[in-house]
């Protein structure tokens, strides 16, 4: 029980949302609201499943950690690539022609594992 308290927190919180949604159903609301909130309850239970899978694969508490650092150099080009994708909504699809190569650079940096190494 204590080992899986983290799972219970997420699953229980999702369930609380489900209970509140059920009470709303008694009062009545538009169908869209049930799809919206019901979808969130499903999402939260999926998150609980992910936590459960993780806690079955590893310890609940750690004494040794992996601190990944590789490929951090890909983050900034990726962010600017997403920025151009968002701006394409405002200024036109031609910006996707710039976003595409930038995102490809980010992928290449991620695959190579490039990052700035602090001395």
């Amino acid at each position, binding site marked *: 029980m*204590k080992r899986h*308290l*983290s799972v219970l*927190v*997420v699953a*229980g*919180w999702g369930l*609380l*949302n489900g209970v*509140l*949604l059920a*009470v*709303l159903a008694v*009062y*009545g*609301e*538009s169908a*869209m*609201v049930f799809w*919206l909130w019901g979808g*969130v309850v499903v*999402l*939260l239970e999926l*998150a609980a499943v992910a*936590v459960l899978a*993780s806690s079955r694969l*590893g310890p*609940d*508490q*750690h*004494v*040794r*950690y*992996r*601190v*990944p*650092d*590789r*490929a*951090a*150099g890909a*983050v*900034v080009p*990726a*962010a*600017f690539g*997403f*920025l151009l994708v*968002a*701006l394409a*909504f*405002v*200024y036109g699809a031609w910006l996707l022609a710039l976003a595409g190569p930038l995102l490809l650079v980010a992928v290449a940096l991620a695959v190579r*594992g*490039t*990052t*700035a*190494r*602090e*001395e």
Partner: protein
Amino acid sequence: MTVAPPTAKEGTGGRPVPPSGWLAWVTSTDHKRIGVLTIATSLVLFLVMGTFALTMRAQLAQPEQHLVSTELYNQLFTIHGSGMIYMVVTPFAIGMGVYLVPLQIGAPGIAIPRLTLLGYWLYALGALVMLAGFATPGGAHADGWFSYPPMADSVHSPGAGSDLWIAGVFLATTGTIVMGWAVLWTGLRKRTHGMTMLRLPVFSWSMIATCLMVIGAFPALLAALGLLAVGRANPAIFEANVWNIGYQHLFWFYGHPVVYVMFFPYLAAVSEVLAVFSGRRFFGYRGTVLSLLVFAGLSMSVWGHHMFATGQATNDYYSLTSIALLVPAGVEYFAMIGTILGGRLRLGPPMLFALAFIPQFLIGGLTGIMLGTPVIDYHVTDSYFVVAHLHYVLFAGSAFGLFAAVYFWFPKVTGVMLGDRAGRLHFWLLVIGTNVTFLPMFALGYLGMPRRVSAYASFEGFGWLNLLSSVGAAFLAASVLVFAVNVLWTLRRRTLGSAERAPDDPWGGHTLEWATTSPPPRLNFTPDHPVPPVTSFAPLLDQRQRREEGAAAGDGSRP
């Protein structure tokens, strides 16, 4: 028992850069750097948004003033509201989680660090995109922070400013969701040996509850923005009322929980400060943890109270759940007051801000219950009463928690102490400014002054209350100026080597971050500063008490 230090980080083989260089900062996967970047960005934006607020208060200080045009005024209140909520108070809260949660749970880093860094960049770029609206020919977006269609469609709000607002808020919210996932996963799955869930500090619990709301509610904002974008491409969509109301449901499904996202971390920061500066263990820990989770759950169910006046929401249900919020809120207030009662209070700047939070947030909370009651809401909806309420929640409440957190954790983050006298001056100016600015707004709203008006006629009788409010805003400006000078001056003195050095634990803290150096090393804990035994949610207090008991027993055994 001590815990072995974490393993060294992986070799990266990348380009070598100096640790303090800009490239090391912008590509760092160190959660502390990402946290500092997030917090610093939100503080800079706080100054920008505050300038917009001052311009609005100058405009409203007298009847029939036209310091800025109506069009610009609409842009100012829209970007002020959007900026404060999407780009300042929410990211600051998540940034605190990114910085503090790994330290508080004894971990050397955050989960998914590269995605966390991506989250920061999406947030920062989103803020720039939103502000870029001012540089467009039609100006920035001007339909308020919730931007209801059909007002926000391309017929009624033409121009690129509104599109940039959508793109910017979408990017920033996506970044916040990513950072929220990282903090949540860290709290749930990266705890050190001995750190069970029921030994998590109150702040870390608050971040878990906060991030559950982030992952549950924030995607609804992305959906709302997507709907608005589609509607701007094809305005015929918003000719059907179902999509106008549908937008409001999507928006407020995000828009109410975000208030708690902007509240829980600050409430928890206040709780940590109250316990440390009272010299007592936090009172009612388990009740507070449970109430945080119930509070967060209920917060997902109350969004319809923002739609009472539409006549198209189930008012009975939303009113019931809104009033039910009083129960977990009461538990948390009871715990905070129980913590300070009987304590040996030290009234340093963090404690002053924490103490002021309690009554001021209460005003915001109780007026929220009033607004959650349809009969009152019908009278004051879209009036300055609502403006006063939300500013008592987010400024008189959350901002005081924010400043309590800044004064409390500044020594840990920077390694130097923030000026005490300037901190006290900042506090008193802020208390005066907050209450003189926002208290008259309740009366203005009750008397019928609508929100979002750029001017009012002198015969309406709103003049002296608005003047009072604007005088208060001047106090707020002075207080923030004192704060900014204090921070910049302290950092400058740190560079010159003349600032007061912060010890590892300047306040007698209770939680693990105070066990490491100030500032903490790259992997948080070292063999010289290992993670101490985790015996409760206040492990450092336990350690001190054990030492004192041991010393007392040693004294008693002497002949």
